[in-house]
């Protein structure tokens, strides 16, 4: 252990710089604050103390040659026997009354089970919530500002996010309207009239883990999900062609009302979004 003052200068400098930095922090705070200056000063203020303490320990304190013996962790057989006796004696007294013990266990068990019931208050049963959205037959498609969408505005290569009228922002009902242009739509069997005038509608919720499928690439007619890079072929019923999604995006049956607005013919034919255990049952 050295007691000389050599090396004390560095420690003193560290602490001294820290003091200045702390004073600076107070000033900066009073002056209105600035995150970068605050961060830099905190670095110096805290770092100065840290460096000072470590230098102090390394230069002036015992290096660390101390030795201590370990006591054996397992207790001696004698101690163990005595502990076992202490427990055993009491346990015998209690366990002798078999019926009471069983009743006590039953009481605690029943209470434990009963105590689990309030967990049910945390949420409602899924019920049919995952099987339906807000789309119904005859409901108009509106954009995020609530304005009904004219079919003529969905030109080739246009993509718009829409909701059922009256339910703007309903997360499960978010739908993409895509302009395919005339003659391009290749319907899945039974869906020939679902895309009037080249306007096709698909659920925007990725069937992988539910991110909005926000990227559309008209040159490839692909919808692309940014989360895990699933790609859906818009011309083939939004069938997944790349990435981890295993099911197509559900298609919304569309029609155009006499005023030219895009209108749904009904809800999606299957549950939207990611899969769940009983999704195949309705």
């Amino acid at each position, binding site marked *: 252990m050295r007691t000389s003052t050599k090396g004390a200068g560095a420690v003193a400098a560290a602490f001294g710089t820290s003091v200045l930095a702390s004073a600076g922090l107070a000033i900066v705070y009073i002056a209105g604050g600035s995150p970068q200056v605050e961060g830099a000063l905190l670095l110096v203020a805290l770092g100065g103390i840290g460096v000072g303490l470590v230098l102090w320990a390394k230069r002036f304190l015992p290096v660390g040659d101390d030795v201590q013996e370990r006591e054996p962790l397992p207790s001696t057989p004698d101690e163990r026997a005595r502990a076992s006796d202490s427990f055993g004696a009491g346990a015998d007294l209690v366990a002798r009354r078999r019926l009471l013990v069983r009743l006590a266990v039953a009481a605690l068990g029943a209470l434990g089970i009963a105590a689990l019931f309030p967990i049910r208050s945390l949420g409602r049963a899924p019920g049919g919530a995952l099987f339906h959205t807000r789309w119904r037959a005859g409901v108009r498609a509106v954009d995020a500002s609530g304005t009904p969408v004219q079919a003529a505005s969905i*030109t080739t290569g246009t993509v718009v996010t829409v909701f059922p009228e009256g339910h703007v922002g309903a997360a499960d009902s978010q739908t993409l309207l895509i302009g395919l242009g005339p003659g391009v739509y290749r319907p899945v069997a039974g869906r020939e009239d679902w895309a009037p005038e080249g306007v096709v509608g698909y659920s925007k919720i990725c069937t992988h883990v539910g991110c909005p499928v926000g990227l559309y690439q*008209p*040159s490839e007619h692909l919808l692309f999900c940014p989360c895990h890079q699933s790609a859906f072929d818009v011309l083939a019923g939004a069938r997944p062609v790349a990435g981890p999604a295993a099911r197509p995006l559900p298609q919304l049956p569309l029609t155009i009302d006499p005023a030219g607005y895009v209108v749904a013919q009904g809800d999606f034919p299957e549950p939207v979004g990611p899969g769940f255990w009983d999704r195949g049952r309705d």
Partner: protein
Amino acid sequence: MTARTAVFVAVALGIATGACTYLSDEPTPFRPPGVTSDVNAEQRGLELYERDCAWCHGSAGEGTSFGPDLNGPLDGGAYTHFMLATGRMPLDDPERRAAPASPRYEVADIDAIVRHVETFGGTGPGVPTPSPAAGDLAEGAELYLDNCAACHSSTAVGGALTSGEVVPDLDGVSPVVVAEAMLVGPGCPNTSRTCGPGEGAMPRFELDEGSVNSILRYIEYLQRPDDEGGAPIGRVGPVAEGAVALGVGVVALLLLARWIGTRTGDRG
């Protein structure tokens, strides 16, 4: 001032003057005062087009085996200006995909070529004249997050698409160019096939003037955002933050621990 200092100053001044002269713009030719239009622009446009573009696009914009025609439903001022101003055209190699680069021409020359291409008869939109200052910043933020952020990123750093397409970042892109991209939907993947409207890599967004101005104003903000928190480390989110936390934070602390603690063999 000693003689040595004087010599030093003189040499420094000499170097500075020489550098300034060498690096300065070429002297501009004389124009009579008050002349604003470049009466030879038409000639210049034709010259440049014949020199650089006609090989692939044909002298009358009719297209060749090397490149598409320039008189289709998408072609016009907007598309042409977009391609030139973002350096996507001219292509050194017609087999290669057009990608953003430094523009090859001066602004005046780009305008001249655009005007020349417009004479080919394409029916696409003309060069738009947006005014971002008239836009509403908050409305622009909302519209940008709704329409643009998914591909271009909420921080405008761009991203990846399928089939090797890359979404460009919006750094340094002028409002006119952004407005053109929204009208035209650029990114035609096949260099020898003409893309019709809405067949590019980017969808088309035909929004009203106010919305366009607002989006442009917000994009201008994104090009120089308030980085209140400090060094923005690329604005790509948790990937960069994780790299810094591990590569800088944890590594620094491991090194500090090595300084503080003992090492095997420190003791005799």
